[in-house]
């Protein structure tokens, strides 16, 4: 029983990291129908920015803020410079461009920071929390991970629902041509979408790096699992991305805990393939695939 609680709670925490990556993918997919393969690389790069600031200033929160800011800027810059020119071209062009970006970002990170594994400080204590003699299997840092992603997602949901900017973003996602007819400058909206995606990716990078170490490829497997979470959630829905992340995190933590941690990534890929085969529009979709 204690083990089960531990694996579940630990799974929720790591699942929120997948959720953050999934959310960043959904933000871009909804607006542009582009799957951003460079999302993990962008997250890794922002985590390096955080590490440098932390090492220079000794202040974790300055590094945390710097990572989020760099994610915003990197996302916006990449959209304007690299992605915009392929926006109305065949879908394969964008795929090649974002894969190329991933290789480029990882290469640049290797040149700037070297290939060695670097340890990354956690925000809070990583010793397990106990209630009496009952070990929950999660630390205050794990709690922070879950709370940080959830808070960011709630802020995003509020922006979507209650602000003019959010309404423009949703209209652009659902029907870009109608949005333009109503005077929405969709170029700016798409840039903002990439910026927010960069921010959520950076958040994931900073939160996961204490447990994975930081190196140029450190986010590759996290990206795959984040993508799986997004697919579980239907790739269209921010709420689905969060749910998909938590479901995946908990399932994979059971696999890691009961069967062995070597199998986690393998099972992640199995789940990805199964969802794509059985319910390609995600577990939560109620409507048929939209006709394009």
């Amino acid at each position, binding site marked *: 029983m204690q083990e089960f609680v531990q694996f579940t709670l630990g799974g929720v925490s790591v699942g929120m990291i997948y959720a953050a990556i999934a959310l960043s993918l959904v933000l871009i997919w909804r607006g542009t129908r582009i799957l951003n393969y460079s999302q993990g690389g962008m997250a890794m790069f922002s985590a390096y920015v955080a590490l440098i600031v932390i090492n220079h200033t000794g202040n974790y929160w300055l590094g945390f803020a710097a990572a989020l800011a760099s994610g915003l800027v990197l996302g916006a810059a990449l959209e304007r410079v690299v992605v915009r020119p392929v926006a109305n071209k065949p879908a394969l062009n964008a795929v090649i461009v974002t894969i190329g970006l991933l290789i480029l970002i990882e290469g640049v990170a290797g040149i700037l920071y070297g290939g060695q594994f670097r340890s990354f400080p956690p925000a809070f204590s990583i010793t397990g929390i106990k209630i009496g003699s009952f070990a929950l299997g999660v630390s205050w840092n794990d709690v922070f991970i879950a709370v940080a992603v959830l808070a960011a997602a709630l802020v995003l949901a509020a922006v979507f629902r209650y602000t003019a900017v959010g309404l423009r973003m949703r*209209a652009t996602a*659902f029907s870009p041509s109608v949005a*333009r007819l109503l005077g929405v400058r969709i170029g700016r909206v798409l840039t903002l979408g990439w910026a927010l995606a960069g921010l959520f990716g950076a958040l994931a990078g900073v939160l996961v790096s204490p447990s994975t170490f930081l190196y140029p490829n450190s986010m590759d497997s996290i990206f795959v699992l984040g993508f799986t979470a997004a697919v579980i959630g239907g790739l269209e829905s921010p709420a689905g991305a969060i749910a998909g992340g938590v479901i995946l995190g908990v399932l994979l933590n059971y696999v890691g805990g009961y069967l062995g941690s070597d199998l986690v990534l393998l099972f992640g890929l199995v789940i990805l393939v199964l969802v794509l085969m059985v319910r390609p529009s995600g577990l939560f979709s109620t409507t048929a695939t939209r006709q394009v």
Partner: protein
Amino acid sequence: MSDAAALDVKDIVAGYGGGPVLDGLSISVRAGTITAVLGANGAGKTTLLRTISGFVRPRRGRIEVGGANLARRRPEEIARAGVAHVPEGQGVITELTIEENLRLGALIRPSADRAAALAGTYERFPLLSDRRGQLAGTLSGGERQILVIARALMAAPQVLLLDEPSLGLAPRIVAQIMTLVRQLRDDSGLTVLLVEQNARSALGIADRGIVLNLGKIAADEDAADLAADVSLRRHYLGF
């Protein structure tokens, strides 16, 4: 009703690659009037509206609204300059609520004006008011047409472009929509460019009628004269 043109299309050449669909077309729409653009399928009616609203870039010519030349600007900038286009097949965003669709229409106005615009719309269209929180996808075809017209009006446009508002609607609903458009002209002085297959309904409310044939103007007359011209009707309008 003044003599000033709210919309001046001058010598437009436009198409989709290949030969031009609109070939040196000029039309002038007086402020506060309804101008009906009629003609068979393929005459260039929809292309005319898509060119005015910027989705088709003209190769030549000017499109003037309020003195500014809007030709070759982007659709979102043309919308911001006061041209509201209600496209054929409607363009309700079904995933948003009725209220969100309406609010979206007013986002190009100063934020101080938006609440009053919404209140005014609900007063005019009680149907939309009653169902404001529902997804727009739950509306019937006729209700959606009213929503898109109401949404276009939220922007307080200089010119309203209506593309086939009667398409796929029952005759009774078509009559309601046409009455609504006429009321908007009479009450608010709205300027409308109305593209219709349903020539009889359109000429029933229009001040002026333009017949397009193969991208050129076949007739440009007072709506009443056009409706009375038996040979023209038989030739181009089919009634």
